[in-house]
């Protein structure tokens, strides 16, 4: 049964780790703005081709 002492201690450590992560996240400002990041993650990283360069290219083809 003494293994339970170790397990209890271990579970507390895990819980403390999560508390620590939560505090870290708050400190980092993650809870200051809970909307913008949800939009930001949907942006593509790749560049959009310029309308004019597209046009000149198609002209060249012709």
């Amino acid at each position, binding site marked *: 049964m003494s293994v339970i*002492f170790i397990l209890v201690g271990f579970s507390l450590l895990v819980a403390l780790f999560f508390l620590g992560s939560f*505090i870290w996240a708050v400190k980092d400002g993650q809870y200051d*703005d*809970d*909307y913008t990041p949800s939009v930001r993650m949907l942006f593509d990283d790749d560049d959009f081709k*310029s309308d004019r360069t597209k046009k000149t290219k198609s002209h060249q083809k012709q």
Partner: protein
Amino acid sequence: MSQEKIVGIKRELESDLKDNTHCFHCGSDFEEIIVKAYAHRFCCEGCKTVFEILDENGLGNYYGMEDNPGNKILSKIGNKYSFLDSPEVESGLLDFNDGGVSSVKFYVPKIHCSSCIWLLENMHRLEKGIVKSTVNFLKKEVYVVFNDEILSLREVVELMVSIGYEPNISLNDYKKEAGKTEDRSPYYKLGVAGFAFGNIMLLSFPEYFDTNGYLNDNFRKLFGYLNLFLATPVLLYSASDYFVSAFKALKRKYLNIDFPISVGILALFGRSSYEIISQSGAGFMDSFTMFVFLLLVGKWYQNRTYQALSFERDYKSYFPLAVIKVWEGREEPIPVGDLKVDDIVILRNQEIVPTDAELLSETAQIDYSFVTGESEPISKIQGEKIYAGGRQVGASIRIKVKKVVSQSYLTRLWNQDTFAKEGSHFQSVVDKVSKYFTLFVLIISISTLLFWLPEGHSLAFKIFTSVLIIACPCALALTLPFAFGNTMTIFGRNRFYLKNAEAVEKMDRIDTLVFDKTGTLTQTGNEEVLFVGEKLNTQEQALVYSLVAHSTHPLSKTIYQFLEGNTSQKVTAFKEVPSQGLEAKVNDCLIRIGSASFTHYLGALNSDLSSRVFVNINQVNRGYFLIKKQYREGISELITRFKKEGYQIHLISGDNASELDNLKQYFPEGHLHFDQSPEDKMNYVKTLQKMGAKVLMVGDGLNDAGALKQADVGLAVSDDVYSFTPACDAILDAENFTQLNSFLSFSKRTIKVVRISFGISLFYNTLGMVFAIQGVVTPLFAAILMPISSITVVGFITLAIRYCARQKNL
């Protein structure tokens, strides 16, 4: 080519073909000027330029995410931002500056869609000097980090202006406290309480389920001490606000809801610690942490306010940061706060007069629409006094400062200390209930103690603390946060934004409404003129035109403008009868225009809120001009509804009494006041309050600011809630103005719901106490009763308030 891109381009082409009437950049409807370029149509050169800038820099994505995301470019930048070159101003604005890298935060009201976020966060691709820019969408803020060796602050601002995102830089931003970040402690407190609550609950299970006595004493000890260890930070840190608040209230000699909460918390913790240390029981640590956790959740729910709206704006957010001062023949920008008496200042077109001054230039046109709500600019001539808050229209002018900024006519309104609603602490419903509740609990618990004392000290003490624990007003304390939180959410959906939860309760008590006229009941803009009756022929039109040309009355001016283009004829025997009309001989015709009685008009009229000017030529009634002051739609119905519901209604206007006849039918005798100065308005509200009225002031401009602050609830009506609104308790989008009575009656419903749920929670407390007095309360009983009562109350409130909202069509 990726699937997404094909879809994107297809969509672009389709929208291009279909959408020929909207600007590709800003989406404005076309009127005349159309600039065609690159297969897109633009409403103006400005929009086209932005498109070019973005397109050249590979930022065409901006147009791919939302249709017509841009902002219309309204004016040229010129040297509007030259004041940012002054090192003093610059350092006052920067958040942080460390050899090479500077950072600054701007409020940009024009942020409105995901494209905006994308573009503003990609500014580094437009300009190398920008290191990083981050948008907070809800607050409409942009945080820019830039390399100050490459870019100046002015260049950063001008870059943002050039792509259509003009930051709002006002005196308010100047010399903010450096490094002032948000208070994040509520999150920490909530986190600590949640952590302790979860773990203690787990550690308490063995005790609860150990019905056969298998639990080893060592385990019992371990779990007990662990619980104590976990609960201590909850007591000392998470719950600290309640002790502080209860103590402060006690010092001011009243009992608020935080007092029974604190007593409950201390009883829970004290009793549990005693049981754990003396090994006499398991303690109530799980109930204790749950209690604190639920309270903090309620607090958090209530305090989610509208981040992008400001309810505290004073003249500082309206005033410019710097003005151009003429000094020893040079022009240099200085912060307005540093202006001294007799300084000479140059004001350019559309710039605001920062303080009371004397005009040095020959003439000026000052637009006081922000201060008074009146849209016509006022002409001033050399040597005349110009008051702060006006806006110069037209050419640059020079003025000589007569008072320092903080002493001007306008700013004095804010600096009056009378606004600190002296000592009159707002007594919330819950405070009233908690006063009796606390007394009731104290009486019951002490009688219980005395009753059980003969049976032994320790037993009596145990039962005494049980009563205190069970009496913990958990559900009671959760009632208000959830009721008001829900109400504010529903209001917010209807674009009615409250500053804080207290405002809901204040609205419930309102019995008197005071309206401002211009800008609140009326919409600033052009009047609509119609002629009712047989059409006037050219000769008759010329007669009327010649007559009104001689009068300065606002209605005459409106008709004059309406008839513009007619030829003026000679007017003799001109007579103006105040508040009646005009009479004169024009071309041998006797002509009278004015009120119905003045012109002997006998026809039937239906009443609405518009002015009529009757025309009588040679004793013949010819009809009347119908001048619709652009009152907001549905105003007359709204006022009628208010009257039916028994509210006292008043009107105070800074305008002249020209609209008196129209408004008389809606507002009772003696409740209509014209030509009121901002101070008059404030004093009027004060007088009403002295007579015992609870006043809701509805206003819009700076001239209402004093009255808004003085009133029990100050409500600002605004066409754009993100633009300037004077300090107030609530902001209402003008579009939803006619729903104002629903908002008021909904607040009353909310308070009713609150009362009922007080009943429910008191029922639970009494039920629990019945058991506690008999001494049969176990930790398990407490651990079950508390969540059940809280869930019932929160559930009831949420459902009841949603139901009421649906009934009111909110």
